[in-house]
Protein backbone atom coordinates (compact mmCIF):
# COMPACT_ATOMS: atom_id res chain seq x y z
CA UNK A 1 0.00 0.00 0.00
CA UNK A 2 2.85 2.38 0.93
CA UNK A 3 4.63 1.44 -2.29
CA UNK A 4 1.55 2.32 -4.35
CA UNK A 5 1.07 5.63 -2.49
CA UNK A 6 4.68 6.63 -3.22
CA UNK A 7 4.29 5.47 -6.84
CA UNK A 8 1.18 7.59 -7.37
CA UNK A 9 2.87 10.55 -5.74
CA UNK A 10 5.97 10.10 -7.95
CA UNK A 11 3.74 9.90 -11.01
CA UNK A 12 1.94 13.12 -10.03
CA UNK A 13 5.25 14.83 -9.44
CA UNK A 14 6.62 13.60 -12.78
CA UNK A 15 3.63 14.79 -14.80
CA UNK A 16 4.17 18.26 -13.35
CA UNK A 17 7.81 18.25 -14.48
CA UNK A 18 8.54 20.55 -17.41
CA UNK A 19 11.33 18.27 -18.63
CA UNK A 20 8.75 15.58 -19.36
CA UNK A 21 6.66 17.89 -21.52
CA UNK A 22 9.69 19.30 -23.35
CA UNK A 23 10.92 15.83 -24.30
CA UNK A 24 7.41 14.63 -25.16
CA UNK A 25 6.82 17.70 -27.34
CA UNK A 26 10.04 17.05 -29.29
CA UNK A 27 9.13 13.39 -29.70
CA UNK A 28 5.61 14.15 -30.95
CA UNK A 29 7.02 16.78 -33.31
CA UNK A 30 9.53 14.30 -34.76
CA UNK A 31 6.90 11.56 -35.11
CA UNK A 32 4.54 14.03 -36.81
CA UNK A 33 7.33 15.29 -39.11
CA UNK A 34 7.94 11.72 -40.29
CA UNK A 35 4.80 12.06 -42.44
CA UNK A 36 6.36 14.95 -44.37
CA UNK A 37 9.70 13.14 -44.69
CA UNK A 38 7.87 10.05 -45.90
CA UNK A 39 6.49 12.06 -48.80
CA UNK A 40 10.01 12.29 -50.23
CA UNK A 41 10.72 8.58 -50.01
CA UNK A 42 9.66 7.17 -53.40
CA UNK A 43 6.82 4.97 -52.19
CA UNK A 44 8.27 4.14 -48.78
CA UNK A 45 5.86 6.31 -46.74
CA UNK A 46 4.57 3.53 -44.51
CA UNK A 47 8.03 2.22 -43.70
CA UNK A 48 9.45 5.65 -42.86
CA UNK A 49 6.53 6.67 -40.66
CA UNK A 50 6.79 3.42 -38.68
CA UNK A 51 10.60 3.36 -38.48
CA UNK A 52 10.97 6.99 -37.41
CA UNK A 53 7.96 6.76 -35.10
CA UNK A 54 9.17 3.68 -33.24
CA UNK A 55 12.74 4.99 -33.05
CA UNK A 56 11.56 8.38 -31.72
CA UNK A 57 9.32 6.69 -29.17
CA UNK A 58 12.20 4.51 -27.95
CA UNK A 59 14.86 7.23 -27.97
CA UNK A 60 12.78 9.93 -26.31
CA UNK A 61 11.40 7.35 -23.87
CA UNK A 62 15.02 6.66 -22.88
CA UNK A 63 15.62 10.41 -22.42
CA UNK A 64 12.58 10.64 -20.15
CA UNK A 65 13.76 7.59 -18.17
CA UNK A 66 17.22 9.10 -17.78
CA UNK A 67 16.34 12.72 -17.04
CA UNK A 68 13.51 11.96 -14.64
CA UNK A 69 15.13 8.83 -13.17
CA UNK A 70 18.38 10.49 -12.13
CA UNK A 71 16.60 12.94 -9.85
CA UNK A 72 14.29 10.42 -8.21
CA UNK A 73 16.25 10.02 -4.97
CA UNK A 74 18.58 13.00 -5.22
CA UNK A 75 15.74 15.54 -5.29
CA UNK A 76 14.19 14.00 -2.17
CA UNK A 77 17.53 14.32 -0.34
CA UNK A 78 18.17 17.84 -1.59
CA UNK A 79 14.70 19.07 -0.61
CA UNK A 80 14.98 17.16 2.66
CA UNK A 81 11.58 15.56 2.03
CA UNK A 82 13.28 12.16 2.36
CA UNK A 83 13.80 12.74 6.11
CA UNK A 84 10.09 13.19 6.61
CA UNK A 85 9.37 10.04 4.63
CA UNK A 86 11.88 7.73 6.31
CA UNK A 87 10.74 8.95 9.71
CA UNK A 88 7.38 7.34 8.91
CA UNK A 89 6.80 3.59 9.23
CA UNK A 90 7.96 2.98 5.68
CA UNK A 91 10.86 0.74 4.76
CA UNK A 92 13.52 2.17 2.54
CA UNK A 93 12.94 -0.56 -0.03
CA UNK A 94 9.26 0.46 -0.19
CA UNK A 95 10.30 4.01 -0.89
CA UNK A 96 12.60 2.94 -3.72
CA UNK A 97 10.08 0.52 -5.24
CA UNK A 98 7.42 3.22 -5.11
CA UNK A 99 9.70 5.68 -6.83
CA UNK A 100 10.53 3.13 -9.53
CA UNK A 101 6.91 2.16 -10.14
CA UNK A 102 5.88 5.82 -10.32
CA UNK A 103 8.43 6.54 -13.02
CA UNK A 104 7.54 3.36 -14.91
CA UNK A 105 3.90 4.46 -14.81
CA UNK A 106 4.93 7.88 -16.20
CA UNK A 107 6.88 6.16 -18.98
CA UNK A 108 3.96 3.86 -19.73
CA UNK A 109 1.71 6.88 -20.28
CA UNK A 110 4.22 8.85 -22.39
CA UNK A 111 5.38 5.88 -24.50
CA UNK A 112 1.70 4.92 -24.86
CA UNK A 113 0.87 8.39 -26.22
CA UNK A 114 3.78 8.22 -28.69
CA UNK A 115 2.90 4.67 -29.78
CA UNK A 116 -0.74 5.63 -30.36
CA UNK A 117 0.37 8.57 -32.50
CA UNK A 118 2.62 6.26 -34.56
CA UNK A 119 -0.27 3.79 -34.89
CA UNK A 120 -2.61 6.57 -36.05
CA UNK A 121 -0.12 7.96 -38.58
CA UNK A 122 0.57 4.45 -39.91
CA UNK A 123 -3.21 4.00 -40.32
CA UNK A 124 -3.33 7.30 -42.20
CA UNK A 125 -0.55 6.26 -44.58
CA UNK A 126 -1.38 2.54 -44.98
CA UNK A 127 -5.17 2.74 -44.89
CA UNK A 128 -5.33 -0.09 -42.35
CA UNK A 129 -4.41 -0.66 -38.72
CA UNK A 130 -1.09 -2.30 -37.80
CA UNK A 131 -1.62 -3.40 -34.18
CA UNK A 132 1.73 -5.23 -34.20
CA UNK A 133 3.32 -1.77 -33.87
CA UNK A 134 1.99 -1.68 -30.30
CA UNK A 135 3.78 -4.97 -29.64
CA UNK A 136 7.03 -3.45 -30.93
CA UNK A 137 6.53 -0.36 -28.74
CA UNK A 138 5.71 -2.64 -25.79
CA UNK A 139 8.92 -4.58 -26.32
CA UNK A 140 10.89 -1.32 -26.41
CA UNK A 141 9.13 -0.34 -23.19
CA UNK A 142 10.72 -3.37 -21.46
CA UNK A 143 14.14 -2.00 -22.45
CA UNK A 144 13.13 1.39 -21.00
CA UNK A 145 12.21 -0.32 -17.71
CA UNK A 146 15.83 -1.51 -17.49
CA UNK A 147 17.13 2.00 -18.25
CA UNK A 148 14.83 3.43 -15.54
CA UNK A 149 16.10 0.88 -13.01
CA UNK A 150 19.69 1.78 -13.92
CA UNK A 151 18.92 5.50 -13.47
CA UNK A 152 17.37 4.77 -10.06
CA UNK A 153 20.40 2.70 -9.03
CA UNK A 154 22.83 5.50 -9.89
CA UNK A 155 20.52 8.04 -8.29
CA UNK A 156 20.90 6.27 -4.92
CA UNK A 157 24.61 7.05 -4.60
CA UNK A 158 25.54 9.72 -7.15
CA UNK A 159 24.81 13.26 -8.25
CA UNK A 160 22.27 13.83 -11.06
CA UNK A 161 24.99 14.81 -13.57
CA UNK A 162 27.05 11.69 -12.95
CA UNK A 163 23.93 9.53 -12.82
CA UNK A 164 22.87 10.90 -16.21
CA UNK A 165 26.30 10.10 -17.68
CA UNK A 166 26.35 6.58 -16.20
CA UNK A 167 22.81 5.79 -17.34
CA UNK A 168 23.44 7.19 -20.80
CA UNK A 169 26.55 5.00 -21.02
CA UNK A 170 24.51 1.95 -19.97
CA UNK A 171 21.90 2.81 -22.63
CA UNK A 172 24.52 3.21 -25.40
CA UNK A 173 26.47 0.09 -24.40
CA UNK A 174 23.23 -1.87 -24.08
CA UNK A 175 22.08 -0.85 -27.55
CA UNK A 176 25.48 -1.76 -29.02
CA UNK A 177 26.28 -4.83 -26.91
CA UNK A 178 25.94 -7.22 -29.86
CA UNK A 179 28.25 -5.09 -32.02
CA UNK A 180 30.85 -4.78 -29.25
CA UNK A 181 30.98 -8.58 -28.97
CA UNK A 182 31.20 -8.92 -32.74
CA UNK A 183 34.10 -6.44 -32.99
CA UNK A 184 35.95 -8.23 -30.20
CA UNK A 185 35.48 -11.60 -31.92
CA UNK A 186 36.79 -10.23 -35.19
CA UNK A 187 39.71 -8.09 -34.08
CA UNK A 188 40.82 -8.79 -30.50
CA UNK A 189 43.16 -11.40 -29.06
CA UNK A 190 41.85 -14.31 -26.94
CA UNK A 191 42.30 -12.52 -23.58
CA UNK A 192 40.50 -9.36 -24.66
CA UNK A 193 37.85 -11.48 -26.36
CA UNK A 194 37.08 -13.30 -23.12
CA UNK A 195 37.01 -10.06 -21.15
CA UNK A 196 34.66 -8.45 -23.66
CA UNK A 197 32.46 -11.55 -23.64
CA UNK A 198 32.24 -11.39 -19.82
CA UNK A 199 31.33 -7.68 -20.09
CA UNK A 200 28.78 -8.52 -22.81
CA UNK A 201 27.07 -10.95 -20.43
CA UNK A 202 26.89 -8.41 -17.60
CA UNK A 203 25.75 -5.24 -19.42
CA UNK A 204 22.08 -5.14 -20.43
CA UNK A 205 21.42 -6.47 -23.90
CA UNK A 206 18.87 -3.85 -24.95
CA UNK A 207 19.05 -4.93 -28.62
CA UNK A 208 17.06 -8.09 -27.89
CA UNK A 209 13.97 -5.97 -27.18
CA UNK A 210 13.97 -4.51 -30.69
CA UNK A 211 11.32 -6.22 -32.79
CA UNK A 212 10.32 -3.10 -34.75
CA UNK A 213 12.19 -4.21 -37.86
CA UNK A 214 10.39 -7.57 -37.98
CA UNK A 215 7.04 -5.87 -37.40
CA UNK A 216 7.63 -3.27 -40.13
CA UNK A 217 8.78 -5.89 -42.67
CA UNK A 218 5.91 -8.22 -41.75
CA UNK A 219 8.32 -10.96 -40.74
CA UNK A 220 7.09 -13.68 -38.36
CA UNK A 221 7.68 -13.00 -34.66
CA UNK A 222 8.86 -15.77 -32.35
CA UNK A 223 6.63 -15.72 -29.23
CA UNK A 224 9.17 -17.88 -27.35
CA UNK A 225 11.92 -15.34 -28.06
CA UNK A 226 9.70 -12.45 -26.94
CA UNK A 227 8.85 -14.35 -23.74
CA UNK A 228 12.55 -15.04 -23.12
CA UNK A 229 13.34 -11.34 -23.66
CA UNK A 230 10.57 -10.39 -21.20
CA UNK A 231 11.97 -12.85 -18.63
CA UNK A 232 15.48 -11.45 -19.15
CA UNK A 233 14.15 -7.90 -18.75
CA UNK A 234 12.30 -8.77 -15.53
CA UNK A 235 15.40 -10.51 -14.11
CA UNK A 236 17.66 -7.56 -15.02
CA UNK A 237 15.26 -5.00 -13.52
CA UNK A 238 15.04 -7.15 -10.37
CA UNK A 239 18.83 -7.33 -10.11
CA UNK A 240 19.22 -3.53 -10.49
CA UNK A 241 16.47 -2.82 -7.96
CA UNK A 242 18.00 -5.19 -5.40
CA UNK A 243 21.36 -3.48 -5.92
CA UNK A 244 19.75 -0.06 -5.50
CA UNK A 245 17.98 -1.19 -2.32
CA UNK A 246 21.22 -2.65 -0.94
CA UNK A 247 23.06 0.65 -1.47
CA UNK A 248 20.17 2.77 -0.23
CA UNK A 249 19.89 0.69 2.97
CA UNK A 250 23.48 1.58 3.88
CA UNK A 251 23.20 5.30 3.19
CA UNK A 252 23.43 7.49 6.22
CA UNK A 253 20.97 10.40 6.12
CA UNK A 254 21.74 11.85 9.56
Amino acid sequence: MSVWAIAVNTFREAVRDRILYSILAFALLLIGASVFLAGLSLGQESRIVKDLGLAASSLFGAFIAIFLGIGLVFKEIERRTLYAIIAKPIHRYQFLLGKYLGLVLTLLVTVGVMALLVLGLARLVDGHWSPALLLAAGSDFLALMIVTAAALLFSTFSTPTLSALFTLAIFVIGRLSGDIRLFAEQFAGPGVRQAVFALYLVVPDLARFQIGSQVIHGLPLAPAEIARAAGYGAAYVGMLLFLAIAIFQFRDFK
Partner: protein
Amino acid sequence: MRRHRLRSPARVSTCCLAVAALLLVGAVIPLHRQSVSPEGSGVEDRVLLLPPPAALRAAALGYRGMMADLVWLLTIQYIGGHLATDRRLPELRRLVETVVALDPQFVEAYTLGALFLSYTGRDYASAIALLERGARENPTRWEPAHDLARTYYIELKDYPKALHWFQVTDRLPGRPHYVPRFIARLYAQTGQVETALELWRAMRESATSDWVREIADREIAKLEGQGTAPPPKGHR
Protein backbone atom coordinates in the same frame (compact mmCIF):
# COMPACT_ATOMS: atom_id res chain seq x y z
CA MET B 1 14.25 56.60 -9.98
CA ARG B 2 14.99 57.13 -13.65
CA ARG B 3 18.00 54.84 -13.38
CA HIS B 4 15.87 52.15 -11.76
CA ARG B 5 13.32 52.32 -14.61
CA LEU B 6 16.08 51.87 -17.18
CA ARG B 7 17.27 48.71 -15.49
CA SER B 8 13.85 47.13 -14.98
CA PRO B 9 13.78 43.45 -16.02
CA ALA B 10 11.17 44.06 -18.74
CA ARG B 11 13.29 46.78 -20.30
CA VAL B 12 16.48 44.68 -20.20
CA SER B 13 14.56 41.76 -21.69
CA THR B 14 13.17 43.95 -24.50
CA CYS B 15 16.63 45.32 -25.27
CA CYS B 16 18.13 41.83 -25.37
CA LEU B 17 15.34 40.62 -27.70
CA ALA B 18 15.96 43.59 -30.00
CA VAL B 19 19.73 42.90 -30.09
CA ALA B 20 19.07 39.21 -30.77
CA ALA B 21 16.72 40.10 -33.64
CA LEU B 22 19.30 42.53 -35.03
CA LEU B 23 22.02 39.88 -34.88
CA LEU B 24 19.74 37.36 -36.61
CA VAL B 25 18.82 39.68 -39.46
CA GLY B 26 22.11 41.59 -39.71
CA ALA B 27 24.68 38.85 -39.18
CA VAL B 28 23.43 35.27 -38.80
CA ILE B 29 21.28 35.10 -41.94
CA PRO B 30 23.73 36.98 -44.26
CA LEU B 31 26.68 34.89 -43.03
CA HIS B 32 24.69 31.66 -43.40
CA ARG B 33 23.58 32.70 -46.89
CA GLN B 34 27.23 33.19 -47.89
CA SER B 35 28.00 29.60 -46.94
CA VAL B 36 25.17 28.18 -49.08
CA SER B 37 26.67 26.69 -52.22
CA PRO B 38 25.34 28.29 -55.42
CA GLU B 39 25.59 24.88 -57.13
CA GLY B 40 22.94 23.13 -55.13
CA SER B 41 21.70 21.78 -51.85
CA GLY B 42 24.94 20.08 -50.82
CA VAL B 43 23.59 16.60 -51.56
CA GLU B 44 26.76 15.71 -53.47
CA ASP B 45 28.94 16.65 -50.49
CA ARG B 46 26.78 14.64 -48.13
CA VAL B 47 26.93 11.65 -50.50
CA LEU B 48 30.71 11.84 -50.82
CA LEU B 49 31.20 12.27 -47.08
CA LEU B 50 28.79 9.48 -46.13
CA PRO B 51 30.63 7.20 -43.67
CA PRO B 52 31.01 3.49 -44.49
CA PRO B 53 28.14 1.15 -43.49
CA ALA B 54 30.04 -0.33 -40.50
CA ALA B 55 30.48 3.15 -38.99
CA LEU B 56 26.84 4.04 -39.65
CA ARG B 57 25.70 0.79 -38.05
CA ALA B 58 27.55 1.71 -34.85
CA ALA B 59 26.40 5.33 -34.94
CA ALA B 60 22.78 4.20 -35.38
CA LEU B 61 22.77 2.85 -31.77
CA GLY B 62 20.62 -0.02 -32.93
CA TYR B 63 18.11 2.21 -34.74
CA ARG B 64 19.33 0.79 -38.04
CA GLY B 65 15.96 0.92 -39.76
CA MET B 66 15.76 4.65 -39.11
CA MET B 67 19.35 5.15 -40.30
CA ALA B 68 18.58 3.15 -43.47
CA ASP B 69 15.58 5.43 -44.07
CA LEU B 70 17.71 8.55 -43.72
CA VAL B 71 20.32 7.22 -46.19
CA TRP B 72 17.45 6.22 -48.49
CA LEU B 73 16.10 9.79 -48.41
CA LEU B 74 19.60 11.01 -49.32
CA THR B 75 19.67 8.46 -52.16
CA ILE B 76 16.36 9.79 -53.50
CA GLN B 77 17.70 13.35 -53.41
CA TYR B 78 20.83 12.17 -55.22
CA ILE B 79 18.84 10.36 -57.94
CA GLY B 80 16.48 13.31 -58.33
CA GLY B 81 19.34 15.77 -58.70
CA HIS B 82 21.06 13.73 -61.39
CA LEU B 83 17.87 12.84 -63.28
CA ALA B 84 17.28 16.55 -63.65
CA THR B 85 20.82 17.20 -64.93
CA ASP B 86 23.39 14.74 -66.35
CA ARG B 87 21.47 11.46 -65.74
CA ARG B 88 24.67 9.84 -64.45
CA LEU B 89 24.64 8.10 -61.08
CA PRO B 90 28.23 7.10 -60.15
CA GLU B 91 27.57 6.96 -56.39
CA LEU B 92 24.24 5.16 -56.59
CA ARG B 93 25.59 1.67 -56.01
CA ARG B 94 27.49 2.73 -52.87
CA LEU B 95 24.42 4.53 -51.51
CA VAL B 96 22.08 1.60 -52.08
CA GLU B 97 24.62 -0.85 -50.66
CA THR B 98 24.81 1.32 -47.55
CA VAL B 99 21.02 1.27 -47.23
CA VAL B 100 20.79 -2.52 -47.51
CA ALA B 101 23.79 -3.04 -45.21
CA LEU B 102 21.85 -1.13 -42.56
CA ASP B 103 18.58 -2.93 -43.29
CA PRO B 104 18.94 -6.12 -45.37
CA GLN B 105 15.13 -6.49 -45.44
CA PHE B 106 14.61 -3.18 -47.28
CA VAL B 107 13.43 -4.96 -50.45
CA GLU B 108 12.46 -1.79 -52.31
CA ALA B 109 16.01 -0.47 -51.97
CA TYR B 110 17.26 -3.51 -53.92
CA THR B 111 14.58 -3.31 -56.61
CA LEU B 112 14.47 0.46 -57.10
CA GLY B 113 18.25 0.73 -56.80
CA ALA B 114 18.70 -1.96 -59.46
CA LEU B 115 16.11 -0.28 -61.70
CA PHE B 116 17.98 3.03 -61.69
CA LEU B 117 21.36 1.30 -62.01
CA SER B 118 20.02 -0.51 -65.11
CA TYR B 119 17.95 2.10 -66.86
CA THR B 120 19.75 5.31 -65.93
CA GLY B 121 23.28 4.13 -65.24
CA ARG B 122 23.26 1.17 -67.70
CA ASP B 123 25.25 -0.70 -65.04
CA TYR B 124 23.62 -4.12 -65.41
CA ALA B 125 26.39 -5.99 -63.55
CA SER B 126 25.83 -3.90 -60.41
CA ALA B 127 22.06 -4.21 -60.77
CA ILE B 128 22.31 -8.00 -61.00
CA ALA B 129 24.70 -8.18 -58.01
CA LEU B 130 22.36 -6.01 -55.95
CA LEU B 131 19.28 -8.07 -56.85
CA GLU B 132 21.08 -11.35 -56.15
CA ARG B 133 22.00 -10.03 -52.72
CA GLY B 134 18.36 -9.02 -52.23
CA ALA B 135 17.16 -12.50 -53.21
CA ARG B 136 19.69 -14.09 -50.83
CA GLU B 137 18.75 -11.86 -47.90
CA ASN B 138 15.01 -12.13 -48.52
CA PRO B 139 14.35 -15.69 -49.70
CA THR B 140 10.60 -15.40 -49.09
CA ARG B 141 10.10 -12.20 -51.13
CA TRP B 142 9.34 -12.53 -54.83
CA GLU B 143 10.40 -9.03 -55.91
CA PRO B 144 14.22 -9.43 -56.20
CA ALA B 145 13.88 -12.78 -58.03
CA HIS B 146 11.26 -11.29 -60.37
CA ASP B 147 13.44 -8.27 -61.17
CA LEU B 148 16.43 -10.54 -61.80
CA ALA B 149 14.27 -12.48 -64.28
CA ARG B 150 13.15 -9.23 -65.92
CA THR B 151 16.71 -7.89 -66.24
CA TYR B 152 18.04 -11.15 -67.69
CA TYR B 153 15.04 -11.40 -70.01
CA ILE B 154 14.69 -7.89 -71.37
CA GLU B 155 18.14 -6.36 -71.13
CA LEU B 156 20.66 -9.19 -71.16
CA LYS B 157 18.59 -11.58 -73.35
CA ASP B 158 19.91 -14.43 -71.22
CA TYR B 159 16.80 -16.63 -71.46
CA PRO B 160 18.03 -19.66 -69.45
CA LYS B 161 18.81 -17.39 -66.48
CA ALA B 162 15.55 -15.51 -66.96
CA LEU B 163 13.70 -18.85 -66.91
CA HIS B 164 15.53 -19.88 -63.73
CA TRP B 165 14.59 -16.67 -61.91
CA PHE B 166 10.98 -16.74 -63.16
CA GLN B 167 10.79 -20.29 -61.78
CA VAL B 168 12.17 -19.06 -58.44
CA THR B 169 9.60 -16.23 -58.47
CA ASP B 170 6.83 -18.72 -59.25
CA ARG B 171 7.51 -20.61 -56.00
CA LEU B 172 7.26 -17.50 -53.80
CA PRO B 173 4.07 -16.21 -52.14
CA GLY B 174 2.36 -13.14 -53.59
CA ARG B 175 4.07 -13.32 -56.99
CA PRO B 176 2.33 -11.64 -59.96
CA HIS B 177 -0.30 -13.69 -61.80
CA TYR B 178 1.54 -13.57 -65.15
CA VAL B 179 4.67 -15.46 -64.04
CA PRO B 180 3.45 -19.02 -64.99
CA ARG B 181 2.43 -17.68 -68.44
CA PHE B 182 5.91 -16.24 -68.99
CA ILE B 183 7.52 -19.53 -67.99
CA ALA B 184 5.33 -21.32 -70.55
CA ARG B 185 6.30 -18.80 -73.24
CA LEU B 186 9.99 -19.22 -72.43
CA TYR B 187 9.61 -22.98 -72.82
CA ALA B 188 7.71 -22.50 -76.10
CA GLN B 189 10.29 -19.94 -77.30
CA THR B 190 7.59 -17.45 -78.31
CA GLY B 191 6.17 -14.07 -77.38
CA GLN B 192 9.31 -12.20 -76.35
CA VAL B 193 7.91 -8.75 -77.15
CA GLU B 194 4.52 -9.51 -75.58
CA THR B 195 6.25 -10.73 -72.43
CA ALA B 196 8.51 -7.70 -72.23
CA LEU B 197 5.55 -5.37 -72.84
CA GLU B 198 3.51 -7.10 -70.18
CA LEU B 199 6.36 -6.83 -67.69
CA TRP B 200 6.75 -3.11 -68.29
CA ARG B 201 2.99 -2.48 -68.17
CA ALA B 202 2.78 -4.33 -64.85
CA MET B 203 5.63 -2.21 -63.56
CA ARG B 204 3.95 0.96 -64.77
CA GLU B 205 0.71 0.03 -63.00
CA SER B 206 2.41 -0.74 -59.71
CA ALA B 207 4.85 2.20 -59.87
CA THR B 208 4.76 4.53 -56.88
CA SER B 209 6.77 7.31 -58.47
CA ASP B 210 6.84 9.34 -61.66
CA TRP B 211 10.50 8.42 -62.19
CA VAL B 212 9.68 4.71 -62.41
CA ARG B 213 6.65 5.43 -64.61
CA GLU B 214 8.87 7.47 -66.92
CA ILE B 215 11.30 4.55 -67.34
CA ALA B 216 8.40 2.14 -67.98
CA ASP B 217 6.80 4.50 -70.55
CA ARG B 218 10.09 4.88 -72.38
CA GLU B 219 10.68 1.12 -72.57
CA ILE B 220 7.06 0.44 -73.60
CA ALA B 221 7.36 2.98 -76.42
CA LYS B 222 10.64 1.39 -77.51
CA LEU B 223 9.10 -2.11 -77.61
CA GLU B 224 5.94 -0.95 -79.37
CA GLY B 225 8.08 0.67 -82.06
CA GLN B 226 10.10 -2.53 -82.37
CA GLY B 227 7.17 -4.71 -83.59
CA THR B 228 8.25 -8.35 -83.78
CA ALA B 229 10.78 -9.91 -81.48
CA PRO B 230 14.11 -11.42 -82.45
CA PRO B 231 14.41 -15.18 -81.93
CA PRO B 232 15.75 -16.09 -78.51
CA LYS B 233 19.36 -17.15 -78.23
CA GLY B 234 20.85 -19.55 -75.71
CA HIS B 235 17.40 -21.08 -75.28
CA ARG B 236 16.86 -24.73 -74.73
